[in-house]
C-alpha cells in the first residue's frame, strides 16, 4: 500500500502513471487523440466516397475529355457555361482531372467533411453540452482548441494524401499524363482550401457555441468562393470577384497544368492557422454552454 506522502506527491504532479502501479495510465495528448479517433469511421467513409468518385470519373477521360466528339460538344456550349463548369480545359488530362475531381466532386466531398468536422469540434460539442464537462477537467481551453484543430487538420491532410495516391494510380490507366510535381502542388491547394473552410467553421462554432453557425461560416467560404469564381468567370467586369474567391485562389491558375500559385498556398495555410489562433482566443474568453 502506498503511503499518504507518496500519493500526495503523485497527486501534486498530477501524474500517477509514472509511479507505475497505482494509477490508471493516461494518454499523452488525450484531446487530440480522442478528436482524431472519434471520427475514424467518418474519415473512412469520406475516403471511400472519394475513391469511388475518382474511379468513376478519371477512367472516363479517354472517352470523354480526350475524344473529339466531346470536344465538339463542349465547343457548342455557351462559353460562359463552359467556364462556369470549368470545362474549358477538359481536353487535357490535367484540365479534366481538375474539372472533375479537384474542382468539383472532390472539392464538394472534402469541403463537406472539413466543414462538418470544424463545426462539430467546438460549436457542436458545446451545443450538445459535452464541452462543459471536458473543460471542467484538467485541460485549458487553448489546449482543447489547438488539439482539436490539429486533429481536423490531420484528417484533411490524410484525405489530400489519399487524393494524390488515387489520382497517381489512375494517371496511367486513364491516360491523364499528369505532371507529378504539379499533382503534389494541386493536392496541397486542395487540402489547404478544405482546411480554410474547416477552420472558418471551427472559428464560427467557437464564437457562437452553435454547430449551425459553424456550418454557415464554413459553407460561406466554400460555396461563396465557388459562386464568386463562377460569376467572376462570366465577364471581365465581374472578374474582380475572383479576388474574394478562395476557390479561385486554388484553381483559377490551373495548378495541375501550370503548378501552384504559392501565394494561395500561403493564404490557405496561413489563414487557417490565424483562424485556429482566433478560435483559441475566442474560446478562452467566452462563457460556455449558456
Amino acid at each position, binding site marked *: 500500500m502506498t503511503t499518504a506522502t507518496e500519493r500526495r506527491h503523485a497527486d501534486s504532479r498530477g501524474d500517477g502513471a509514472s509511479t507505475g502501479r*497505482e494509477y*490508471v495510465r493516461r494518454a499523452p495528448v488525450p484531446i487530440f487523440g480522442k478528436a482524431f479517433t*472519434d471520427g475514424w469511421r467518418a474519415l473512412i467513409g469520406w475516403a471511400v466516397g472519394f475513391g469511388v468518385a475518382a474511379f468513376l470519373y478519371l477512367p472516363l477521360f479517354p472517352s470523354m475529355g480526350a475524344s473529339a466528339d466531346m470536344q465538339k460538344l463542349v465547343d457548342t456550349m455557351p462559353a460562359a457555361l463552359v467556364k462556369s463548369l470549368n470545362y474549358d480545359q477538359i481536353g487535357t488530362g490535367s484540365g479534366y482531372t481538375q474539372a472533375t475531381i479537384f474542382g468539383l466532386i472532390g472539392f464538394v466531398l472534402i469541403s463537406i467533411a472539413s466543414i462538418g468536422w470544424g463545426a462539430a469540434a467546438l460549436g457542436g460539442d458545446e451545443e450538445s453540452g459535452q464541452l462543459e464537462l471536458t473543460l471542467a477537467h*484538467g485541460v*485549458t481551453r487553448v489546449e482543447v482548441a489547438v488539439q482539436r484543430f490539429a486533429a481536423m487538420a490531420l484528417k484533411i491532410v490524410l484525405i489530400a494524401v489519399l487524393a494524390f495516391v488515387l489520382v497517381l494510380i489512375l494517371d496511367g490507366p486513364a491516360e491523364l499524363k499528369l505532371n507529378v510535381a504539379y499533382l503534389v502542388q494541386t493536392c496541397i491547394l486542395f487540402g489547404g482550401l478544405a482546411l480554410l473552410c474547416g477552420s472558418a467553421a471551427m472559428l464560427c462554432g467557437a464564437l457562437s457555441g452553435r454547430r449551425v453557425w459553424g456550418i454557415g461560416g464554413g459553407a460561406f467560404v466554400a460555396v461563396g468562393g465557388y459562386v464568386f469564381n463562377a460569376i467572376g468567370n462570366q465577364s471581365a467586369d465581374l472578374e474582380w470577384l475572383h479576388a474574394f474567391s478562395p476557390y479561385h485562389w486554388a484553381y483559377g491558375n490551373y495548378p495541375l497544368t501550370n503548378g501552384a500559385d504559392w501565394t494561395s498556398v500561403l493564404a490557405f495555410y496561413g489563414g487557417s492557422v490565424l483562424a485556429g489562433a482566433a478560435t483559441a482566443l475566442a474560446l478562452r474568453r467566452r462563457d460556455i454552454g449558456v
Partner: protein
Amino acid sequence: MSHVDTTHRSGRQHHQAGAAGNAIEVVELSKRFGRTRALREVSFTVPRGGVFGVIGPNGAGKTTIMRALLDIIRPTSGRATVLGEDSRNAGPELRRRIGFLPGELSLEGRITGRRLLQHYADISGPVPRGHIDELAERFHLDLDSHVRTLSRGNKQKLGLVQAFMHNPELLVLDEPTSGLDPLMQQEFLSLVKEVRAGGQTVFLSSHVISEVQQAADVVAILRDGQVVTVAGVEQLRQTAVRHLRMTATGIPPAELAERLERLDGVGGLVCRSLASGATEAVATLEGAIRPFIQAVSTLAVTDLVLEEPDLEESVLGLYSAPAASASPVGPERGGRP
C-alpha cells in the same frame, strides 16, 4: 468491501494534505446574462471536509454558481476561491483536484462507458487502478454497453463515477441524484458520507429537500440569484412545513378542530365529516411533530398521512417575497407566516 477501503485510504491523505481553511469561498459573486441577473452578490463559504448543499427552484442560480467555480462561465463581478485558488485564474491543476457533475449531463453516445471514463481519466486527476470498476459495481453500472443505449439513470451513474473516480479533494455535484432510482439515491448518499468521512468536501445542489437533509451539514437556500439564508440542516428541519391528513372516528369535526388548533405550528386547518361518518382533518404542520402525535394519541385514528416536507412549499414559502407568497402554496395557509 474494497471500495470502502479505497475511500478511507484517500481520506487519510486528504486529512493530512491540510484540512485547514475553506474549500470554497464565494464573495459577492454576480453574473449577468444580457439583461438577466442570474446571480446577485452571492456570498458563502464551504469549509473543508463538509457537505454543503444548495437548494432552490430551477433558475435560482445553482448551476451558475457551480459553473463559475469551475471557470466554465466568468462572473460579472465578485470572486470565488476554490481550494485556495482564485477560480478565474486557476488552471488545469486546480480542476484536477475537483470532481464535477454537470446538471444537464450530456455524454458522448458512440463509445462504451468504459472508454468514455478512460477519456475523462486521461484529463482529470490520477485515478487509482480498479477504482472505476469498484464505483461501477457499486452503482450496478455496466461499463461495456454503449453510452447511447443506457437509460438516463445509468448515464447519471456514469457521470457520478466520472466525478468520484479520482478521489478529488472537492466534489461539485449539480443535482446528483436526478434520474437515479431510490435505491441508487441511497447508494449515492452513503458514498457522500464515506467521502466526507475521508475528508473530501462535497458541494451539491438539489431541489429535493429530503436529499439535502440527508446528505448535507449546511444548506444555502437560493432564490432568484440570491442567497436567502444559510442554515444548518437541523435548523432547516425546524422550519420545514409538512402536510398532514388524518381521519379519526368518534369525534365530531368541531372537537377535532379545537384539539388541533391549540397546537403550535398547525396552519390551514380544515376539518370535515366524511360520508363514512369519520372526521377528516387536513392541515400544515411546522416544526416538531411530537406535540401533534401526543394530541391525537387518544383518538381512534383510522388514517394518518404526514408528508415529507417539500422545498417548494416549506422553505421557499417561508422566505418568499410578499408578492410570491400569493402563489399557491398548499391548500390554505391560514394566517401563518
